[in-house]
């Protein structure tokens, strides 16, 4: 049995032997997408976060076979093909939101999902959105600053 997976806009044919792998290992080892980190193995820290159909997902506790046909965005897929940073990434750089960098990929993706859904969040809503992503370096202050600074780059959603 084979399975297809869309990763960063690319169709991936998943070999049968890989179906039972943890998806974080499949991304890191088979696809060399090492931005997602394996820091707790139990879904407690958020360092492995990627977006699945634009929703943050902690993939250290899930198998490849759980993601058939789904769209996965990893941190490697956020940057433009010419290497230009996404405005959210640029805001992280400019606001000093990066220290050791280990939580950064998961944090940026969680923030990206928030801003796609709610492009004008309050600081409290930002705090709430990144609640499950642990950072030991920054105290989150400059991360929240960065997300706030990037928000205007996301199109405001038409009122329903």
């Amino acid at each position, binding site marked *: 049995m084979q399975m297809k997976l869309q990763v960063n806009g690319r169709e991936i044919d998943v070999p049968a032997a890989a179906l039972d792998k943890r998806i974080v290992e499949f991304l*890191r080892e088979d696809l*060399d*997408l*090492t*931005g*997602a*980190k*394996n*820091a*707790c*193995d*139990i879904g*407690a*820290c958020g*360092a492995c976060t990627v977006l699945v159909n634009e929703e943050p997902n902690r993939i250290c506790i899930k198998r490849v076979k759980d993601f058939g046909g789904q769209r996965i965005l*990893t*941190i*490697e897929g*956020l*940057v433009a093909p010419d290497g230009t*940073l996404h405005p959210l*990434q640029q805001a*992280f*750089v*400019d*606001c*000093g939101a*990066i*220290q*050791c*960098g*280990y*939580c*950064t*990929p998961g944090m*940026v993706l969680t923030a990206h999902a928030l801003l796609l859904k709610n492009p004008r969040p309050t*600081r409290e809503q*930002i*705090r*709430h959105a*990144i*609640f*499950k*992503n*642990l*950072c*030991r*370096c*920054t*105290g*989150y*202050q*400059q*991360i*929240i600053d960065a997300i706030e600074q990037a928000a205007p780059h996301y199109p405001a959603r038409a009122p329903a």
Partner: protein
Amino acid sequence: MSKSAAKCWRNDAYAKVTGRAKFTDDLKFANVLHAVPVYSEFVHARIVSIDTAAAEQATGVVRVLTARDVPGVNRFGQIIRDYRIFADDKIRYYGDVVAVVVAETREIAIHAAQLVEVNAEALPAVLDPEAAMLPDAPLVHENHGSNIVNTHVVRRGNVEEGFKQADFVIEEDFQTQTIEHAYMETEAAVCVPRSTDGVLEVYGSMQHPFSTRRFVAVCLGVALSEVEVIGTPMGGGFGGKDDTAAVVCARTALAAKLLGRPVKMVYRRDWSMRESYKRHPYRVHYRMGVTKAGAITAVQCRIVADGGAYCSVTPWVTWRSTVQCCGPYVVANVHCDTFGVYTNNVVAGAMRGFGSPQMNFVIEQMVEIAAERVGISGIEFRRRNMVRQGSVTITGQKLDGHKVAMEQALDTVLSEISYEEKLARCAHGQGDDDELYGIGIAMSYRGVSLGAEGVDFCAAIINAQADGSILLEVGVHENGQGAESAMALICAEELGVNLNRIRYRRSSTSNIPDSGTTVASRGTIMGGGAVALAARELKSKIAEAFCAKLGCAPEEVRFKVDGICGKTDGERIGFADAMRQMWQMQRFPFALGTFKAPRVSWDEHTGQGDAYFTWVYGCQAVELTVNRKTGKVKLLHAVAAHDVGRAVNPEMVRGQIYGGMAMSAGYGLHEEVKAHGGKMTTLNLNTYRIPRSMDLPEMKVILIENPDPVSPTGAKSIGEPANEILAPAIANAISNATGRRHFALPIRLGALPEPTMCGEGCK
């Protein structure tokens, strides 16, 4: 990019924000083997045998290593060589490693690790540090003769006289907990035997490449030149990636050397938490004598630090606690006895703050308690006793030669947070509202760098190329704090060149001289000092080469706007052009800078001396509410002001302070490593709770810059000062909110009593 163009500049930001930065576990090598540690279920036991046969026979297992396989020395330590790379004679704590399984995959190794059988005779475990000090206590290290690792004292003035002068004597007992660094990246190492010359290349997550190299070389019985530790991005350290990280590298290197293949060892979170050293839990008995006028006349204290199973840096951690045992206050009569103690608990070692967070929790509450007894505000009490320009510390050091900015830091915070006005609104457990409001403050001074703890010097190499590009390497390590960026900014500023000329060279222990460990908040002052001195030497070489051409004396050559010029800006040579010409003149634009810490002194018998060559000053305040029904604490707002000497990369300095405050909030309210009978039960980030975004308040940071004359760049320290006072500020705020004081960390509040007409805490 010029410095001013960027609000914040980091040489590694692009790589980290795009996921391209390769941390140790991200590195791939062909033919790599995987190693995992093996623990036992013992806490204290004499080893009879370790049976590895079943594990070794498992398919895919290549070898199982134990102490027998160590060709060099199995015991190491920076102070006492008692830390085993593999447990040999005894198991001394739950995190002791008895073996390492090396296999073709990590899964196979993990599975086989369960097949290793440890036969041992259980011994009585000593888990209470006070009990460990008793004469009949079981010994953790028999050859040490007792469980007391070290003692320190301060003897100043005459405490008996001092207490006689006092109108009040306040006496309290305090207790602090074991906490975990909880760096997001666990310990990890890859070791690759280089086929060309047999040198062992080590890539790993550690904050001390040079001590790692030392431990690897000693373990393998090879020369330092046979091991090359190569700088690799590190996912956080906070003081925690020294001893344990080095041992992980040593075990990995041993496997790689014996098997002739690359070996990777990446710690699972539960192994990391079980084995890695922690912050020392303290018990402190504190007596303070004060007069009606609010002057401290005497302090007597007894400090007991649980160092766990191995010495690690317990003598140095407790030394800082001793030197700073009265906080930033002048006390004429002091009698302090400090004990570092072996137990069968998890090893305690270096952690950001290094013996100060425990003591500040004590002192900054004691001054508030004393002020209340005297009947003046805590702020006024602090003002009457704090260090000022020219004050003499409790160890007899005169504070001059730098700006003593204690009151400046205090005033900055008071004004920013409107402290006095908000203090009047504190609930003290009274009122109808279920949310009890409180504000609290704490301040500290801190000796910069290692002090009389040890050898303190640092190297930097600036190697300008013929095209005007510059290679910079410094003996400090990038722990994630932005050390490399700070070094590059200092280099660019000193040389007057564009920042984009500078490439920070990937560090290697085979290139830069051993400059010690990147701890003690010494990175910027020591590394930056070395860079500044290297740049000044390079400038004198360049000036000598071009002074004739510029028609001036060498000392008149000026370095600015990416070039050099003489007395007037008209005669200017661009930097790249100058470097090309130097190549033709056969002069190398190369310089080695060495910054040595100024002299410090210490008398171990009296606890007197010039303990540190300079000091920093900081103050933090916090507002919070406590829910009367649930005891839940909500942090509302926090403010910090720190004198950093000079802020080289201001946004990164702020980042250090925000992060330090967050960690201190966790220390105050949430974090605790728990164990049952010596067996740790908090083994992952679900049960060990570090602060999340919702736990923290908005924070405001104010940088105070009083450039320090003894620092070549004017810059001092911030990593640890930021992390040592929010917990006591929280304790003081909780007291102001509830009318109840808490003497143990973390502060745990249950439901509070209903307000009374005039209950406890009522004035």
